[in-house]
């Protein structure tokens, strides 16, 4: 950063980076639930690869957040403290990331919508003035480009597939769609930092929708109509699912604090 940031800016920055970290972590964790249960060995490996990519992104963001928060508080906070010792109401992940995996169509839908958002988001984050965020975005963009391609190909094959695959795909899209609006409605830390480090999220929506529509067109699926959108994740108001995810994910560190490999 060029000038010494004020504490207020740093608080917004911390929240902002945590939002990115939490979204990647929770999505990665959910996808890891497929490990060993994939429909075939190739897909099992594909989806666990994606989960690993996301957790890697999360780590990059958490390490940066830890730096920022340590500076704010004047005490040393680590990436592990942030991932394992915060409660659900402190987590800022998008709601879509905490939804259950459901069937293959449901999981693919989540990955597709989320990756498309990440794709256009990271493209803009590349140019932000914060060098750390820009570097993380550059690395993550390559991974996300593949996630988007892979999930888009699955959407096409399931949508334009058998009667059953189409039915499941349509149901999945209908169920997940109300959780996509949150991606484009900014909260205070996003608006505050828009000019310096951030991204104008509402400006991403058109590109995102274009991508969705193009793939859906090929998949012979229709884009759902405007509907009421779920929100709150970015401010720590979550569905009932996050509690269970964190209980499983954090149990070991909370039961045996400081435990290491």
């Amino acid at each position, binding site marked *: 950063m060029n000038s010494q940031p004020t504490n207020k800016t740093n608080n917004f920055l911390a929240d902002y980076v945590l939002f990115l970290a939490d979204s990647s972590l929770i999505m990665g964790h959910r996808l890891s639930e497929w490990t060993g249960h994939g429909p*075939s060995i*190739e897909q099992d*490996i594909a989806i666990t690869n994606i989960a690993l990519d996301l957790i890697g992104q999360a780590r990059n963001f958490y390490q940066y957040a830890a730096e920022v928060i340590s500076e704010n508080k004047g005490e040393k906070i680590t990436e592990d403290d942030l991932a394992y010792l915060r409660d659900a109401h402190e987590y800022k992940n998008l709601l879509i990331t905490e939804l259950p995996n459901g069937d293959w169509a449901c999981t693919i839908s989540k990955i597709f919508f989320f990756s498309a958002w990440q794709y256009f988001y990271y493209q803009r984050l590349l140019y932000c003035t914060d060098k750390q965020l820009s570097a993380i975005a550059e690395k993550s963009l390559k991974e996300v480009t593949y996630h988007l391609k892979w999930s888009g190909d699955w959407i096409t094959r399931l949508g334009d597939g058998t009667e059953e695959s189409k039915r499941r795909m349509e149901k999945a899209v209908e169920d997940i769609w109300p959780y996509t609006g949150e991606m484009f409605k900014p909260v205070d830390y996003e608006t505050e930092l828009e000019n310096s480090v951030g991204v104008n999220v509402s400006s991403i929506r058109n590109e995102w929708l274009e991508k969705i529509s193009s793939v859906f067109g090929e998949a012979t699926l229709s884009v759902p109509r405007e509907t009421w959108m779920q929100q709150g994740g970015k401010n720590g108001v979550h569905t009932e699912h996050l509690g269970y995810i964190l209980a499983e994910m954090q149990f070991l560190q909370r039961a045996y604090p400081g435990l290491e490999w």
Partner: protein
Amino acid sequence: MNNQQEPLWEVFIRSKQGLDHKHVGSLHAADAKMAIENARDVYTRRMEGVSIWVVESKYIHASNPDEAGSLFDPANDKVYRHPTFYDLPDELKYM
């Protein structure tokens, strides 16, 4: 997902320093595009390669091992076919 309905593909990967694609294994996929993506996921996790070829297994034709004798033994004792009688100048590095 019913693997019996998805065809089998042979996968060939060329490494970063390599000049040729080497056979690394096989996998199931519904079509060519999926086969390449699956090959990328399964066979390039540890930077094994930078180029992927996939061929449906049914298009690979192999020589019959029972015919190995008549196919390959005759080449064994024809030393005149090997270019080993030339003195190469030192300047030629890549022969």
